[in-house]
């Protein structure tokens, strides 16, 4: 029973990780840039949600309607101003640039809102529902449903729409896509915008259940890497599966070993995957 219980909550949390991971993998797929500021984008989503809630009383789950376009615009801005200038630079310089951007984001937020922990408590923050004998946290369940819906919509967008296909073509072969008339620069802007929007959405969805503070992003950046490497860099389905697996591993090791060590298990798993199957569990590496 303990096993099923923690597996279930792990999978629910994993949905959010999947969202963060999908954004990271999308950016990587289209531009071959690893975004080390990804967790900080999530953090900004959290703060947006927090202030929308405390200042105008907008429910955190509703706030994604505002968070998504704002974060998309922010991501597009980052891409146009900074990232596109280093697309042909050494990978280490790309990494350092995004690390720098992350430092700017988290420390600006710290200056403006201080480093105090903030808690967004709603009427349902600690509510739970019974599901087949298992108790499920209400905010987790709602966020999982929203995550699933957004992931589904994203799949539809990437597979069915022209723009989605152009994005996938760019991810598959940048030069070929360019030759076929795809505006790869615009695809980069869209990919970064989408990535930021997904990270921000994840931030909004977890804000009722997490402490909100400026440095929260770092842990999520690392976790997003783990998710993405686990599923295979550049693979969106891989990131989805990877997110759920990481959520489950975390939750299980927290209930069977120690909650302080759950991240340790995640990183060890990460190293093992890197070394034993660097192309990810779902195979097919492009590097």
């Amino acid at each position, binding site marked *: 029973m303990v096993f099923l219980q923690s597996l279930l909550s792990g999978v629910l949390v994993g949905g959010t990780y999947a969202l963060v991971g999908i954004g990271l993998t999308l950016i990587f797929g289209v531009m071959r840039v*690893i975004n080390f500021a990804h967790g900080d984008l999530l953090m900004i989503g959290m703060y947006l949600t927090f202030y929308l809630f405390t200042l105008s009383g907008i429910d955190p789950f509703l706030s994604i309607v505002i968070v998504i376009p704002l974060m998309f615009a922010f991501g597009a801005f980052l891409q146009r101003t*900074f990232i596109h*200038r*280093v697309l042909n*630079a050494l*990978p*280490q*310089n790309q*990494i*350092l*640039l995004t*690390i*720098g*951007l*992350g*430092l*700017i*984001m*988290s*420390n*600006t937020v*710290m*200056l403006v809102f201080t480093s105090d922990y903030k808690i967004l408590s709603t009427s349902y923050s600690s509510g739970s529902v019974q599901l087949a004998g298992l108790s499920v946290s209400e905010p987790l369940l709602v966020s999982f449903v929203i995550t699933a819906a957004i992931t589904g919509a994203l799949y539809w967008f990437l597979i069915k729409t022209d723009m989605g296909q152009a994005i996938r073509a760019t991810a598959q072969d940048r030069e070929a896509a360019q030759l076929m008339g795809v505006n790869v620069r615009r695809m980069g802007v869209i990919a970064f915008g989408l990535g930021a929007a997904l990270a921000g959405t994840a931030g909004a969805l977890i804000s009722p259940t997490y402490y909100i503070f400026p440095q929260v992003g*770092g842990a999520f950046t*690392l976790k997003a*890497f*783990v998710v993405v*490497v686990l599923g295979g860099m550049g693979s969106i389905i891989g990131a989805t599966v990877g997110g759920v697996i990481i959520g489950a591993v975390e939750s299980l090791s927290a209930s069977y070993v*120690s909650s*302080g*060590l759950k*991240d*340790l298990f995640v*990183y*060890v798993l*990460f*190293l093992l995957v*890197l*070394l034993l199957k*660097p192309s990810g569990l779902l195979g097919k590496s492009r*590097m």
Partner: protein
Amino acid sequence: MRLPLARGFALAPLLALGTGVVALVAFPLAVTNPYALHVMILLFLTVIQGESWNVLGGYTGQYSVGHAAYFGLGAYVTLMLLQFRQVPPWWGVWIAILLAVAVAIVIGSITFRLRGPYFVLASIAVAEIFRLIALNWTGFTNGAEGILLNEIPPLRIGGRTITDFVSKVPFYYAGLALAATTIAVNWGVQHSKLGYYFQAIREDQDAAHSLGISLPVYKNIALAISAFFTAWSGAFYGLYVGFIDPGTVLPVEVSVQFVLICIIGGIGTIAGPMVGALVLVPLSEALRANLLSDLLFKIGIVSEDTPTGAFLKDNLAHAHALIYGILVVLVILFMPDGVLGFAKKLFSGRRRQTPALPEVSSEKGSA
């Protein structure tokens, strides 16, 4: 800051070097202000960190963003031995260094199979694992409480007390000696077979491999040298500050700082980390001492009495990480070869107008 301009005069830079060394050795005799000594010690520490990372990241091109692991290991082992086992630090530091090198070789043998961003990610994960161990193994490391050093026993040689570590002066000289050593090591690397092999690996691993260079062997040598001095700098930091916890010696920010020192100054050069330290340390000290907001008030951009002014005064002191971030972004976008490379380019551009050979990227070169 001395740029390698006077290549023609062998004597001039040598004289300058000599004068510099004498000045640095004499500094504590002339200046007794503890804050001035403190800033100098921070400068030395930063130079040591930068030069240590430079061996692996600068010359060999292996961008470790996990050097906090070796820094933290050096600090923790030295302080734990001293505090819990009464092992004097001048013995303990060797145990710490040997342990760090051993750990480095194990980690290196595993992670050096990975290339590019995968290696970066693995190095971060390794450092995080160390941080989590230090944080959670409370009975062994004191966990989040950290280790507060009571006192360092006086150093005696042959019954004579050399120093009792009460003032900052012994730390000044220890830092100076260690900084000089790491600089010498970088010089030695650059002027030996190792340096050639490291740089060949940085430029093209497959080509290096085909020219008879064993990649795992030479990458591990670079990492071992780097970890050796990184652990030493960690021990130095712990002994000087007298307090360590997982949040100060093992977080990702520390790893980023190692990279930053080099990237700001210029990667893969001996002077780069020194320049980086000369930029970073005064900057973060100026922020801490509120010099920057005072300057803004003096120039008259912002008035001290306005709410913005009050806000700046309260907060700019904590903004050094923000400034770091801005610096990184500016350096990567506008001077990817660091301050040193940028200055060099400016200078050589002015001195001779002869066009250089056209830069052909290696991708487009072959048919």
